């Protein structure tokens, strides 16, 4: 008879417990959003709602303009992602393939700016946006994030992996730099660009402090700000808070489950290089 391996059992137990701790809040959130108010406050706590209260979602949409929050978030996250990706592609191309005076200086400045924490500049940026009269506008929400040194460096590792002879060959064949970027560089780094786009979109979707600063009108709020305002306003209606939280998280979770490989690989890659 095989001896039971207690060490291994312990390991399974440990991993199992932490897996439950990690996933439980998500499941509880989804289930809680479908409970009745009584069920959310009973002792012992309810885990499975007796009747699924889909009406909670109707109430959430009726009590706060979540559809508008969704739209705002989708617009800002998409615009930020597309424009910053575009700018990063151009910048990363110049720093990878072109030779010019001052390149070393540009690189050093960009690298040192990578170390500046966003929290240190966000308040003065707020001041700039306020002076430009862009509070409560889409432009104000996205403007400081239309370029990302971080993603530029990230793309440089992809572009750098493409042999410089391809660039030379393209030049000899009479292609312009612009054609090289869009006809060769971008198609060849599709995977990397896609990953960067995903990561950028997710962080745009989850942004909180910046939109909190530059918007105070309900119609311009992003999801997370709308959600936190809703959580304060809805007071004790826990089931509605949880339903609203589910609404906020679900789209990202769906994207995550579809593209989990790219996302995880992307995060690991850009942080090992740092």
């Amino acid at each position, binding site marked *: 008879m095989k001896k039971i391996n207690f060490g291994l059992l312990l390991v399974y137990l440990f991993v199992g417990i932490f897996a439950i701790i990690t996933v439980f809040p998500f499941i509880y959130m989804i289930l809680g959003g479908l409970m009745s108010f009584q069920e959310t406050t009973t002792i012992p706590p309810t885990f499975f709602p007796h009747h699924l209260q889909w009406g909670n979602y109707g109430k959430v949409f009726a009590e706060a303009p979540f559809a508008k929050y969704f739209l705002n978030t989708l617009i800002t996250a998409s615009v930020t992602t597309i424009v910053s990706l575009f700018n990063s592609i151009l910048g990363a191309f*110049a720093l990878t393939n072109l030779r010019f005076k001052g390149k070393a200086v540009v690189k050093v400045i960009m690298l040192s700016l990578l170390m500046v924490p966003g929290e240190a500049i966000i308040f003065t940026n707020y001041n700039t946006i306020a002076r430009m009269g862009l509070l409560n506008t889409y432009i104000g929400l996205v403007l400081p994030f239309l370029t990302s040194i971080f993603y530029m460096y990230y793309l440089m590792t992809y572009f750098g992996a493409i042999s410089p002879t391809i660039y030379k060959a393209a030049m000899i064949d009479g292609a312009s730099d612009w054609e090289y970027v869009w006809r060769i560089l971008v198609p060849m780094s599709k995977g990397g660009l896609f990953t960067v786009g995903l990561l950028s979109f997710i962080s745009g979707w989850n942004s909180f402090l910046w939109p909190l600063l530059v918007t105070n009108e309900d119609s311009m709020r992003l999801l997370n700000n709308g959600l936190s305002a809703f959580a304060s306003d809805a007071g004790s209606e826990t089931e509605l808070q949880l339903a609203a939280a589910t609404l*906020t998280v679900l789209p990202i979770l769906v994207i995550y489950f579809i593209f989990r490989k790219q996302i995880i690989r992307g995060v*690991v890659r850009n942080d090992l290089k740092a």
Partner: protein
Amino acid sequence: MKTNNKKAWLYLLPTIIFVSLFSIFPILRALGMSFQSGPLINLQWTGVSNYQYIFTDPEFWRALKNTLLYAVIAVPSALVISIFLAWSIFSKIRHQSFFETMFFMPYVTSTIAIGIVFRYIFNGDYGMLNFLLRLIHFPAPNWLDDPSMNMTTLILFGIWTSLAFNIVILMGALRNIDPNYYTLADMYGASGNEKFWRITMPQLVPTIAFLLTMNIIGAFKIYTEVYALFNGQAGIGNSATTAVYYIYNKFQMVGTPGVAMAATVVLFLIILVVTFLQRKMMKRIGR
């Protein structure tokens, strides 16, 4: 090939414009404002008075103390748990990518939304956590409404949120270890423990050092976690205030941007020192 291709500047133009306007300018502006007092529309140069103010402000010290507490307790605890989890998944469990996917979920999801769930779980009256604690006859503290518990709650939440990133990075590092080491160790009959301490740990040191500094820097930037957990406040009576909270409060609520910027400069310098130490440490380890 041209050695000085001026067109490069054209490609860098958008980046340079945005970076100058929204990265370089704000740093200089913050530095300048830290020596000025008054409301935003009428700032006056007042020398170092803002710095004197923050260093004598007990609220600022509390923010730093909380950050330190978080960095000393939450960061290492989360790291130890992550190492153990990553190693267990990597070496003992078959469905690696399944577990990896699961453990990484908190990283991609909104802290505000998760904070709402945790507020519910931590609720003193009908929360799931206190129900479980009472079930095993443990004391059931008031996690959210008792000021003396607020930092503990924040630290627990912080550990939960930081596991995701740590585990995924550690898994990546584990996969990078040359499997031949283990094959060789097996040939010499090394035990699992020996393999872990003699091969895995030494190979993980650079990754652990990296995660340690990243997490410590992260500790100085905590804001959203607190906001989410205490519904927009920094705990009861500001008991769980953090550096960024302090800055936000002085900038937006109290209307003393000079004080806020002085605190920002101090925060920035601390982060810079930590980053610098990390570089040095990594270099030493690399040798």
